């Protein structure tokens, strides 16, 4: 029953969120702020993780495919497809669920327990829409760009690994990342990230918005936001993969 209670309450919140904004310009300004706070401030972590993951994927593929019958350029292909198909969307989404999800839940949770949300309501502002809608829009706009950025940086990380370790020649690696390239994989990855962006922001906002009590409860909401966002990212990863690639 608890599960259905939360599902119902979540959709009720989303109905409040997706209503006509009271004053468009205020929502626009808030969205720009959120793009910076939630998106641009995540570029660093996406860069670091992607470059190292690209390098590790390349090295692991190289050390596990020491077969003379397999052409060495397949290592580049493996790095590229791993980054595009899974890492840059799903893994980056899981990382962002941790960073952005906990940020959203703790921000809204603190606003709730310090009565800032009540203050908005009393002024006549639709607090759910004003606080959550700009976050959803900002993440839906910026997360796919982070995915594209992660793909480029990840493949570059693989190339750097090749350059420094000489597991294969850089020429073979570059040939591999161009070999049998299917552009639709990028579309698939971006579609997944749009859905993940919505899941991360809406689920985290739900937990933050309905926080109560004090610091302890805000911490619990923040943890739940990350756990639930991660679980739903994995679930929707399976669903979307079946729907899009089948």
């Amino acid at each position, binding site marked *: 029953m608890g599960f259905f209670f939360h599902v119902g309450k979540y959709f009720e919140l989303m109905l409040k969120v997706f209503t006509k904004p009271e004053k468009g310009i205020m929502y626009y300004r808030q969205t720009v702020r959120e793009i910076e706070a939630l998106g641009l401030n995540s570029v660093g972590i996406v860069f670091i993780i992607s470059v190292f993951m690209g390098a590790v994927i390349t090295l692991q593929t190289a050390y596990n495919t020491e077969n003379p019958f397999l052409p060495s350029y397949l290592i580049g292909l493996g790095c590229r497809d791993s980054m595009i198909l899974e890492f840059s969307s799903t893994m980056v989404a899981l990382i962002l669920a941790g960073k952005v999800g906990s940020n959203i839940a703790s921000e809204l949770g603190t606003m709730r327990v310090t*009565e800032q949300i*009540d*203050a908005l309501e009393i*002024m006549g502002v639709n607090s759910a829409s004003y606080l959550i809608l700009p976050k959803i829009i900002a993440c839906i706009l910026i997360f796919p760009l982070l995915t594209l950025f992660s793909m480029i940086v990840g493949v570059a990380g693989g190339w750097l690994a090749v350059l420094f370790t000489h597991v294969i020649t850089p020429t073979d690696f570059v040939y591999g990342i161009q070999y049998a390239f299917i552009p639709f994989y990028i579309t698939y990855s971006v579609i997944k990230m749009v859905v993940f962006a919505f899941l991360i922001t809406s689920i985290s906002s739900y937990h933050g918005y309905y926080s109560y009590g004090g610091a302890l409860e805000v911490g619990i909401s923040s943890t739940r936001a990350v756990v639930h966002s991660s679980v739903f990212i994995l679930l929707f990863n399976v669903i979307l993969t079946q729907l899009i690639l089948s």
Partner: protein
Amino acid sequence: MIEVVHVSKYFDNEPVLKDISVTFERGKTNLVIGQSGSGKTVLLKCIVGLLDVDEGDIIYDEVIFNKLNFGDKKSIRKEIGMLFQGGALFDSLTVEENIIYPMDMFTSMTTEEKIERANFCLKRVNMVNSNHLYPAELSGGMKKRVAIARAIALNPKYLFCDEPNSGLDPKTSIVIDNLIRELTEEFNMTTIVNTHDMNSVMEIGSKVVFIANGMKCWEGTNLEILHSDNQVLNDFIFANSLARHVKNTMKN
């Protein structure tokens, strides 16, 4: 004028407010007093619509507020200013931006007009030159004054204050109390203040409502309260030895 008519509120079938009826008049500082947990804050939240009443009506100048839909409530809410216990200032905004926020949201004033109004409100609460400070840089009393400035930014008809003196020293409390009274008279607002501070009662209580265990036990003025023979009220007012000493001195 705000009328509370036979209002009851339950949490998990437990009554928190029991059949409360009271009228809060315009231009007066109306105080709701009672022990912690007596239902004062729940009553205030029911009046402003943060909580739905289970029985009874909340009437704002002949409009039954609790029966309005969200959109219609908004028109009344724009005439409400509220001072929360902790101030509830928006952390990410400066003092000036906090005060300008309701104007940004609900008016078509120019930037200059908004800044002028913000400066007027800040001057009114003795907080000039604090425009660019963030809430984290303010003391408790300053936060309360900025919150009052934000509450009066749109010239509200109704002002609500939830424990305005909590966490403040007696001298700052008197400053806040006097400010609330002066603003109420100056802007002819209907003001409701939740408090358990007896200094506030004596300073500004033009009308005092005493609540105990979710029920209205007494109502009158700050002058009448000292001579009441209501035992529950007397137990609350004269709970400390200083108050008892004053009472005995007055009797003698």
